[in-house]
């Protein structure tokens, strides 16, 4: 098969590029080594749409942060995923911090970031009583928001697919040949040709670039550990809480996620590209730093933890655009604020493809909208009653911690979920305080029946992440 564009990497950037390209009459392939969209760096993201004032406008990161920020309302509306501008507070403990707030505020105003306010200690205490009494001042930025990063990936990919983009998962790229008028991409699932390649391979963008003979940019991994707290703490803080940043890091934050669960983190330490470990030191660091912001937060409230790896290019900035190899366009080194910037990054990549010679002819059949998924738990009592009346599947609870119904799980499988993590990130089944203890088996049964796979073929997240073995394979008789 010959495609116009092959996108390597279905993280939030690759998905956003795919969806942007699906507006045009093009044959596009989106491929990823993982089993579902967003299963690399994107799913371990903090889920923050940054307010816009953090990044230096002299950098690409800083510029696209604000540009991308403004695209999210429309994206969420079209694709039906949750997004809320809950605002953020960057807090100061002393005069040094206050100077940092002034610099951030000035930088934001220069960039045109709207709504920035300085709050005195009294206002901070009134609005966020759980925060430390030692906070002397804060900078409030109402433009900051939260999304579920995996939902953004799933819906971008789903909408792209609905508009004709072909997807191929568990399909790592093994090598790329340059051929006349394009590239021959050898993946695990077979060989495909493409006139253009978009390298959105995250941590491995340097390896993909090397396959076409490019030298760099070198990508290093900076690990962030995050800790999720029990839903009981919902509302403990209402806004994103940032310490005053240092030149290298935004610090350890308190994040009220879109679903209401409080998350604390991330750490920021260099790591190997496969190091997704959480550590005792990381936990200690996160909770110590967070307690400075809000003394009442405790390790005891932790229900889950995870680690993600940021793809950091030399020079720390995004590397986006054409390369020395004609037709090979990159979006590499996409670290924070990559999620925020993703819509702007996608437009930039499409512009670069156009400059490289890709003809963009609008597809009149492009439909930007995706029906939002049913969310039983957050529906009103009347809506819940109507749902149950419409389909008894919505009357059967699968996940009791997060109140997820069988109907929602079946919907998610119909929309492409093929793994337990895929179900979890689409429906929240298994994401609550019991961490799947009660619902995992039912989810496995539903995957087996609805996606037509034997139970032992159900995995946590693809590949060798099997969950159960047939009795005869593990047990007696062997």
């Amino acid at each position, binding site marked *: 098969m010959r495609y116009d564009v092959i996108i390597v990497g279905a993280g939030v950037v690759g998905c956003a590029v795919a969806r942007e390209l699906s507006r045009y009459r093009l044959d596009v392939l989106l491929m990823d080594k993982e089993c579902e969209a967003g299963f690399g760096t994107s799913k371990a993201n903090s889920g923050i749409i940054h307010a816009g004032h953090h990044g230096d406008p002299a950098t690409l990161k800083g510029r696209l942060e604000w540009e991308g920020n403004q695209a999210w309302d429309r994206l969420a509306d079209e694709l039906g995923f949750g997004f809320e501008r809950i605002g953020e507070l960057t807090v100061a403990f002393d005069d040094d911090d206050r100077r940092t707030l002034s610099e951030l505020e000035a930088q934001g105003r220069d960039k045109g970031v709207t709504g920035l306010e300085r709050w005195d200690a009294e206002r901070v205490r009134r609005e966020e009583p759980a925060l430390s009494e030692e906070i002397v001042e804060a900078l409030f930025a109402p433009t900051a928001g939260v999304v579920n990063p995996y939902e953004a990936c799933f819906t971008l990919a789903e909408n792209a697919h609905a508009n004709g983009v072909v997807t191929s998962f568990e399909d790592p790229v093994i090598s790329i040949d340059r051929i006349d008028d394009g590239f021959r991409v050898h993946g695990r699932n077979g060989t495909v040709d493409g006139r253009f390649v978009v390298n959105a391979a995250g941590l491995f963008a340097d390896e993909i670039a090397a396959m076409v003979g490019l030298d760099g940019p070198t990508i290093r991994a900076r690990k962030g550990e995050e800790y999720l707290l029990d839903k009981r703490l919902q509302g403990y803080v209402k806004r994103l809480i940032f310490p005053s940043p240092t030149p290298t890091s935004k610090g350890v934050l308190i994040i009220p996620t879109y679903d209401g669960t409080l998350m604390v983190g991330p750490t920021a330490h260099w790591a190997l590209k496969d190091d997704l*470990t959480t550590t005792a030191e990381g936990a200690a660091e996160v909770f110590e730093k967070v307690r400075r912001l809000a003394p009442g937060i405790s390790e005891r409230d*932790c*229900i889950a933890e995870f680690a993600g790896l940021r793809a950091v290019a030399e020079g720390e900035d995004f590397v986006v655009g054409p390369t020395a190899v004609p037709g090979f366009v990159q979006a590499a080194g996409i670290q924070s604020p990559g999620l925020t910037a993703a819509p702007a990054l996608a437009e930039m990549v499409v512009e670069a493809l156009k400059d490289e010679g890709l003809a963009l002819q609008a597809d009149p059949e492009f439909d930007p909208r995706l029906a939002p998924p049913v969310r039983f738990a957050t529906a009103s*009592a009347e809506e819940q009653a109507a749902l149950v009346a419409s389909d008894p599947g919505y009357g059967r609870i699968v996940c009791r911690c997060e109140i997820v119904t069988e109907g929602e799980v079946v919907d998610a499988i119909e929309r492409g979920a093929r793994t337990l993590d895929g179900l979890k990130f689409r429906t929240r089944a298994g994401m609550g305080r*019991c*961490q799947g203890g009660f619902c995992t088996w039912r989810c496995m049964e539903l995957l087996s029946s609805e996606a037509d796979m034997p139970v032992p073929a159900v995995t946590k*997240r693809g590949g060798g992440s*099997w969950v159960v*073995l*047939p009795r005869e394979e593990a047990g007696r008789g062997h």
Partner: protein
Amino acid sequence: MVTDRFEQLAPAYDVIVVGGGPAGMAAALGARETGAERVLIVDREGEAGGILHQCIHAGFGLHWFGEELTGPEYAQRFFEQVVEHEIDILTDAYVLDAEGDLGVRVMSERYGMRTVAGSAVVLAMGARERTRGAIRIPGQRPAGVMTAGFAQKLVNQAGYMPGKRVAILGSGDIGLIMARRLVLEGAEVVGVYELMAHANGSNRNIVQCLHDFDIPLHLSTTVSRIHGHERVDKVTVAPVGEGYTVLEDQGSDVACDTVLLSIGLIPENELSRQLRLRLDPATGGPVVSGSMETSRDGVFACGNVVHVHDLVDHVSEEATLAGRSAGAYATGQAPGPDNVRLVPGENVRYCVPHTISTEREHVVHMRVTRPFEACTLRLGDVHARPLRYAFPGEMVTVKVRPRILKEFHGDTLKIDVVPREEGMSA
């Protein structure tokens, strides 16, 4: 075959029982005993019985039925009585909220969304298992790390194996039972690792599930790291020093494909929180009176939702009392209030109930904080009783009769468990 199909969900009941496990069934029967006519059990599963269905090993019923039964047999006996006593069981149903004037909002496959009124409510939702997140085991996040109860469901109900080479963290009873079960099924259990210096499960299970099957139990040892990219491939186990510091540099790697967690149960108190009941931080469950009434009038609680029990027989006993009290409340025969507060004293982690009446007989359950050989249980200054032993993994039970308290005129009784000599000199 006994069937639980009833004609029609009534708009109002004398007693509504939330949860149809052993606690819920015994509570419903207790309510009928004291004259409640209309009793409803709401359960989220397809049949009543709760977690007993996956407990196919024997050892249930020695106290209550005077014979040894399996979990499903124990459940069946109660189930038959429940049906015989014309108690409505609404299965595949979920109580969404219990706000307002003792009405519960129930979602069910059969009736959709309904609000059902109850003169009294009994909470019997049971407990859930603690997970990896609760203790933050460092390392990678592969498939194959699961709670012992989930593995039990896989093996005993679903008919699948969780893996071939299994490490078990924590020495709770479910983990011990599963160690034996997995060996019987042909898997290898490489060891049971317990952070504390003593086992958390019952002695009976240590002997019958580990010793009899040559499964090593490593005390003061923990899983300090989980390895494996897609599926578990090994764990690091390390000794634990003073103050529970993990001595990872003295650790070693053990190959396995599965890690079972048996690190404790947490009462499921989401509804209790909605009802704004007073909770006891030591048990994780509601504070209850001598008649198992919570801090809210007409709301009773029993079983693992109140505190985690070792034996289902004790659950049945406690739940019968809760049900009787709820039935009495619903029919206007509630007893007078309690007049004595019980508080855990020396070496006692918690005691249930939290209050008693000097007029009535009470069964008081408690857990000690550390193991004891010969020791003495002291009830304030009014009563002392020798105990042959006391372990944190086995609930200590004492009957408090009005006779004992005849001379007592205070309002607070402290319960201590102390070494024998000290106890005798008191």
